[in-house]
């Protein structure tokens, strides 16, 4: 892959991702409406499809206020971090044969690295706001994301053991015959749960938990910076969906349709699943979240890795 080619692809992927985000916001609100037996946005344009654009205009024109008691530089950096890490994660996703930014031999680890850096955006946002609710949100985020990172990494190692490579492309190639979800079902489950926790989506949105700690880490944010957190969360959802598709659902593999469509469909289905989760599940308490992670997810991920390793060796 030449440099120009990959740069072009990078731009295309970025554009695709950025146009996907507003669409997702609309989709989520409509789907939530559907599942919760109400309308959702339906005034601006047909099916409320321009609602997002209206919201965007509102967010962009709002005063971008930095509280005087906040730690300015950190306050400004925090929302940028999440956008940066999420977009970097897309670099290693193989969309279709030949379409993808880069094939790293440590691609999977690169994704984990970026998701672990993503924790800073929430943590620093919470700290720099200098507000007790934000601080609590930041503390919760730090412990939640660090803990769930452990299981996330462990749940993926089963796939790595089976494929014998950290490269995303190799992993997709290896799923020609059978998708990894079959032999790695428990890995899939753990990764999905950990993924939801990592991007702190509902029901694991403990760091922001409006009903307990106002809006947690982004209480003090407004305008564009708030928008970045907001968009970052949606992009995070897409990343996790895309990575799950790649690692467990056979990536672009599928009959009849062109690879890129298969990839898109699978990712889309997963995104809808995440939205369904939000519609269907209540938020757990913080200590429940932690003990669920350490007492259920960790043993499950370890057992999965152990069994996979044993089978591969034998």
């Amino acid at each position: 892959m030449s440099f120009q080619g990959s740069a072009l692809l990078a731009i295309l992927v970025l554009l695709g991702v950025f146009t996907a985000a507003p669409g997702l916001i609309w989709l989520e609100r409509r789907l939530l409406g559907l599942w919760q037996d109400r309308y959702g946005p339906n005034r601006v344009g047909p099916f409320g499809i321009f609602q997002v654009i209206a919201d965007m205009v509102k967010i962009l024109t709002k005063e971008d206020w930095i509280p005087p008691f906040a730690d300015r530089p950190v306050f400004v950096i925090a929302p940028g971090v999440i956008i940066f890490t999420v977009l970097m994660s897309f670099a290693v996703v193989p969309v279709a044969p030949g379409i993808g930014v880069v094939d790293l031999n440590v691609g999977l680890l690169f994704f984990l690295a970026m998701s672990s850096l993503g924790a800073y955006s929430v943590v620093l946002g919470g700290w720099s706001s200098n507000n007790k609710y934000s601080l609590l949100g930041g503390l919760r985020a730090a412990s939640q994301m660090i803990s769930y990172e452990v299981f996330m990494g462990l749940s993926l190692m089963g796939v790595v053991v089976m494929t014998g490579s950290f490269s995303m492309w190799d992993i997709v190639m290896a799923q020609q015959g059978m998708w990894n979800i079959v032999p790695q079902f428990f890995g899939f489950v753990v990764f999905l749960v950990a993924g939801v926790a990592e991007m702190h989506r509902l029901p694991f949105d403990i760091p922001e938990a409006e009903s307990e700690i106002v809006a947690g880490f982004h209480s003090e944010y407004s305008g564009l910076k708030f928008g970045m957190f907001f968009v970052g969360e949606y992009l995070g959802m897409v990343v996790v969906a895309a990575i799950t598709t790649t690692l467990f659902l056979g990536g672009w593999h599928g009959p009849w349709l062109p690879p890129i469509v298969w990839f898109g469909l699978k990712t889309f289905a997963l995104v809808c699943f995440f939205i369904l989760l939000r519609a269907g599940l209540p938020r757990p308490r913080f200590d429940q979240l932690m003990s669920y992670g350490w007492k259920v997810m960790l043993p499950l991920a370890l057992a999965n890795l152990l069994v996979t390793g044993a089978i591969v060796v034998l």
Partner: protein
Amino acid sequence: MVTAFYIASAVAIAATIMVITRTQAVHALLYLIVSLLSVAVIFFCLGAPFVAVLEIIIYAGAIMVLFVFVMMLLNLGPESAQQERQWLNPRMYIGPAVLSLVLLIELVYMINQGLATVYSPTVVAPREVGISLFTTYVLGVELAGMLLLAGLVGAFHLGRRRERREHGTDTTTQAADTESSPNVTVGEDS
């Protein structure tokens, strides 16, 4: 690659200088993270992609988060930065700087004398590192496990919060507070 190496080196040095001169702990930590990230880039340039990513995941992503976590618990406000500024009189740097300079000159001299070999880094892929870890160094991995166990037990014991003992009475406080300590999140698997 070579250019990337030198740029990353410059960034690493600059960021590290910022770390040791900041007064606000979180700012210093952010610079430290930048420094670690640029060291990761350097690892990549040196043909060691595996440790490059580990540097980000574990060093920048886990150990440093632990630092932030503790800083949030301590809630060091602007006063502590003020205090730090008073302590950090520029003159204080002179002595240690001279000492370190001597150390550095020694190192530079020695490195120039010793290894005048230009080498082209061969990429040592994760697979090779993994195979090496689990064959030759498998005992080392076990020992590293025991090391982490010591760290875990130690952090649990030392970081444990407990009720203050009542004066005069000799109540043994136990068990009740074993769950309340959130700072046992150090069980990172390497």
